[in-house]
C-alpha cells in the first residue's frame, strides 16, 4: 500500500495487520459488507489528504477535545491528524489575519471539494452579533464557507440541533447548521460530545465511497444512530425484570440495576455509546453508574429534567387541584339545581280527587 496516509501510519509504528483490523472493525460497525473493509483500507491508505475546514461557532470546544485529545494515542486520532486540516482555531498555530488567510486559501484551492466541519450553533439574533470571528458574524462565515464545500459535517449537538445555546429561552437565537444551509449534503453527528469513532467512520466512508453514509430522518448516520441506548444497554435485562436502582448509592445501584427510575433517557436516545463505549472502549456513562442524558437528541436540555424518569410528569401538575375544586363546585351546583327542580315539581303537583274525575 502506498500513499501519504499509510506512510505516516508506518512511521508511527502501526503495522499493516493493525490497520487492516481497524478498517474491518470500522466497516462492520457501520454494517457494511466484509469486502468494504478492504476497500476502506485501500482507499484510506492512498487517500490524498482531503482538505478540511473546521469552523467553531457557539461551542465549548468539547467536541474538539473529544476527537483530538481523548483518543490521541489511537488510530482514530492519527487518521484525524492525517486529513489536511487547513483551518481549526483551537489546533492551528496561525492566528489573526494569518488564520483567516489560511481559510481563504484552502477554500479557493479546493473549491467544490473540501469538507466543512462545523461545531457550535449559529446565533441569528442581533444580526448574528452574539458570536463573531475576525469582525464577521458566524452566520456570514458559514454561508461563505458552505458555498464551495462538497459536504458539511455538523459536529456535536450544537451544530446538529442547536444544543445548549438553543436551550430555553435561547437568548442568542441559536440555530443549527441545517437551519441555515439548505443546498448542501449535511451529516449530523450529535452528542455532547459526539463519539470519536463516528467522526472517523463518516470520514472513512467519505474517502472510500466518495459519498456520505446513509442517514436517518435527523441527518444522523444510521450505522451509529440506528438503535436506542436502551435497546443496546447491558443493564436492559434488569429493566425487563423490573429491577431498578432507586438512588445512586443503594443496593440496586451497587448491583448494577437499571437506571430508568433515576432519569435515564436511554429509551428515547439514539446513539452508539452502549456498543462503541468511550475512552477506547473503557466505559460509558451508564456503565459508570449514571443514566443517559439523551445528549444526541434535539433539545435534550429542555426534555423535562435529567433526573426525572421518562414515565414521570415533566412538570408538576398545576391545574389538577384547581380543576378538582371546580369539578366539585359544578357537581354541588348541579345537585342544588336538581333539588330545586324536584322541589318545584313537588310543589306544583296537584292531587287528583274523586271529585275531579267525576267532573
Amino acid at each position, binding site marked *: 500500500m502506498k500513499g501519504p496516509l499509510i506512510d505516516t501510519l508506518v512511521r508511527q509504528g502501526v503495522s499493516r495487520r493493525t490497520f487492516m483490523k481497524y478498517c474491518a472493525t470500522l466497516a462492520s460497525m457501520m454494517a457494511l459488507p466484509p469486502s468494504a473493509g478492504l476497500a476502506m483500507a485501500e482507499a484510506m491508505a492512498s487517500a490524498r489528504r482531503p482538505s478540511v475546514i473546521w469552523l467553531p461557532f457557539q461551542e465549548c470546544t468539547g467536541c474538539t477535545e473529544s476527537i483530538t485529545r481523548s483518543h490521541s494515542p489511537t488510530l482514530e486520532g492519527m487518521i484525524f491528524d492525517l486529513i489536511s486540516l487547513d483551518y481549526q482555531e483551537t489546533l492551528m498555530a496561525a492566528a489573526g489575519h494569518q488564520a483567516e488567510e489560511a481559510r481563504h486559501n484552502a477554500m479557493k484551492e479546493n473549491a467544490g471539494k473540501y469538507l466543512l466541519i462545523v461545531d457550535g450553533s449559529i446565533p441569528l439574533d442581533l444580526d448574528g452579533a452574539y458570536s463573531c470571528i475576525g469582525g464577521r458574524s458566524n452566520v456570514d462565515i458559514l454561508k461563505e464557507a458552505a458555498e464551495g464545500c462538497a459536504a458539511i459535517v455538523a459536529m456535536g449537538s450544537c451544530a446538529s440541533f442547536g444544543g445548549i445555546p438553543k436551550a430555553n429561552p435561547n437568548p442568542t437565537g441559536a440555530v443549527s447548521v441545517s437551519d441555515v444551509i439548505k443546498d448542501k449534503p449535511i451529516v449530523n453527528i450529535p452528542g455532547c460530545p459526539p463519539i470519536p469513532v463516528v467522526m472517523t467512520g463518516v470520514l472513512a466512508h467519505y474517502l472510500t465511497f466518495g459519498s456520505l453514509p446513509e442517514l436517518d430522518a*435527523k441527518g444522523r448516520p444510521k450505522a451509529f444512530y440506528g438503535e*436506542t441506548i*436502551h*435497546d443496546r444497554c447491558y443493564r436492559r435485562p434488569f*429493566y*425487563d*425484570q*423490573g429491577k*431498578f436502582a432507586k438512588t445512586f448509592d443503594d443496593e440496586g445501584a451497587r448491583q448494577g440495576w437499571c437506571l*430508568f*427510575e433515576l432519569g435515564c433517557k436511554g*429509551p*428515547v436516545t*439514539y446513539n452508539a455509546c452502549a456498543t462503541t463505549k468511550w475512552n477506547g472502549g473503557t466505559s460509558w456513562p451508564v456503565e459508570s453508574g449514571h443514566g443517559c442524558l*439523551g445528549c444526541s*437528541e*434535539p*433539545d*435534550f436540555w*429542555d*426534555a*423535562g429534567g435529567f433526573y426525572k*424518569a*421518562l*414515565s*414521570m*410528569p*415533566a*412538570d408538576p*401538575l*398545576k*391545574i*389538577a387541584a*384547581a*380543576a*378538582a375544586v*371546580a*369539578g*366539585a363546585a*359544578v*357537581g*354541588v351546583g*348541579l*345537585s342544588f339545581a*336538581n*333539588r330545586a327542580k*324536584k322541589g318545584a315539581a313537588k310543589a306544583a303537583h296537584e292531587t287528583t280527587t274523586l271529585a275531579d274525575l267525576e267532573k
Partner: protein
Amino acid sequence: MNELQFLTWVRGPGLDIAVGIFLLGVLWRLFEIYSLGRRKDLSAPRHVSGASGLHTVFRRSIPPPGMLKRSPVSYIGGYLFHIGLAIVVFLFAPHILLIKNLTGLSWPGLPSQFIDLAAVVTMAAMLVVLVDRINKPVKRFLSTFEDWFTWGVTFLPILTGWMAVQHLLLPYTTMLALHILSVEILLIVLPFTKLFHAFTLFGSRWYNGKVNGHKGVPV
C-alpha cells in the same frame, strides 16, 4: 416540534390538562349522581336471604345460569379484557412509577415479558368482542356512536403502548408520546361517557340490589 418536544409536551402540559379535566369531570359527575337522592319508600321491607346491595355487587360479576353458554364471547372476552387491562395498567413498572409520582402510592410490578403477554391477550379479547358486536344483529342495533368511540379510546392506549415497547412502525420516542397522548384522550373522555362505569359500577349495583332487596327480590 420534534418528537422529543412532543414527548415532553405530553409528559408536561398535556398531562396537566388531561388530569385536570379528568378530576373536574369525575368530581362533577360523582357529586351530581350521588346527590340526586331517592324518593322515600313507604312500604315495609321484605327480608329474603341473598337480597341486598352487597349480594348484588358480587352476584353481577358472575354470569347467571345458562348465560355463559348463550353468549360466551361477552363473558369470557369481557373478563379477559378487563383483567388484562387492569394488569397492564397497574402492574407495569413504568406505570407504577407514574402513579407513585402522582399519589405517593406504590406496589411491586410484574416482569415486562408478562405484561407484554397480558397486553396481547387484552387486545385480542377486545378485537373479538368488537367483531362480536359487529356480527350480532341485536348488539349492532343497540350500539351507538358512543360504543364504537369508547372502544377506540380504550384500545388505542394498549395498542400504542405495546407498539412502543415492541418498536413497531414508529421510533420509540414518537410511539411513547402517542401512547401518552392516547391515555390523555382516554382520561378526558372517561368522565363524560359510559366509561364512567369504572367509578359508578359498584355504586349502581349496590343501589339496584338494595332497592330490589327491599322488595324481597334477589337480583
